[in-house]
C-alpha cells in the first residue's frame, strides 16, 4: 500500500520534472521546483514509514522550511530585481 503510494508520488514527481525542464516560462519552472520540493517531502515521509523508521519526518519539516525560504528569495528577486537592496540602492 505504502509502496504503491510511494511509486505514485515518484511518477508525479517525474511529470513535474518534465514540466521544470520544458516549462516555457520561468514561472512554470518555479512552480515545478516548488512542487518537486513538496514531492520530496512526501517521498521522505512515505519512505520513512515504508522502512519502519518514521523518525526522519523532522527532515521533511526542514525541507518544507527550506522550500519556503528558497521560493521566497526567488520571488523577491523577481519583484525587486535584487535581494532586498532597495535601501542600499537609495543610500548610494
Amino acid at each position, binding site marked *: 500500500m505504502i*509502496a504503491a503510494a510511494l511509486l505514485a508520488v515518484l511518477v508525479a514527481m517525474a511529470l513535474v*520534472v518534465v514540466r*521544470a525542464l520544458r516549462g516555457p516560462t520561468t514561472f512554470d*519552472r518555479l512552480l515545478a521546483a516548488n512542487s518537486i*520540493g513538496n514531492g*520530496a517531502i512526501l517521498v*521522505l515521509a512515505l*519512505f520513512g514509514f515504508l522502512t519502519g523508521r518514521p523518525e*526522519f519526518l523532522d527532515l521533511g519539516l526542514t525541507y518544507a522550511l527550506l522550500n519556503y525560504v528558497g521560493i521566497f528569495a526567488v520571488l523577491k528577486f523577481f519583484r525587486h530585481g535584487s535581494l532586498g537592496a532597495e535601501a542600499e540602492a537609495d543610500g548610494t
Partner: protein
Amino acid sequence: MIETTVTILLLLMLGAVTIGIVRVRGLFAAVVLLGVYSFLMATLFVVLDAVDVAMTEAAVGAGVSTVFFLGALSLTDTVEAPGKRRQIMPLFVAVVTAGALLWGLSDLPEFGSPDQPIHRQGADYLVRSMPETGIANVVSAVLASYRGFDTLGETTVVFTAGMGILALLRRRRGEGKS
C-alpha cells in the same frame, strides 16, 4: 526491491535535470533547476540512509546556494552569452574523468558490506588512542594525531577562504569611499 526502484527513478530524474541545467540558456532558470537538483539529491541521500548528508545537501544546496546565486545574478546579467563554437577539449576531459571515476568505482567494496575497510581498520581507536597518543579525548586524538595532516589541510583551506573574502570585502569598501 522497492528501494532499488526508488533509487533508479530518482537517478533518472537527476540525470534529466542535469542535462536540463547544461542546456538551458537563461541563468535564472538554471538557478531554479539547480534547486530542483538539490532536492532530488537530498531525497536520494535519505533513500541511501545518509540522513545527515541529506540535511546538509538540502540546507546548502537548495537553501543557501539558491540565495547566493540570486545575489550573484542581481550583480550580473541573467542571460548567458551564447557559445561561439563547440569545444571538443572540455568534453574530452570530462569524458576521461568520468571514465576514470567509473573505473575506480569497480574497486570499491560492495555497498553495505561488513568487510569494508572502515569497519575493519580503526574500529579499535577507543582502545588504542590513549596508550598511543596520550590524549584522553578520542575525537581529539583522531583529528589532531592520526589525521593530523588532514586537519592541517582543512584548516589551510578555511584560512585561505577567509583571507580571500576579507580581501574582496576590503576592496569593495575602498571603492565605495573613493
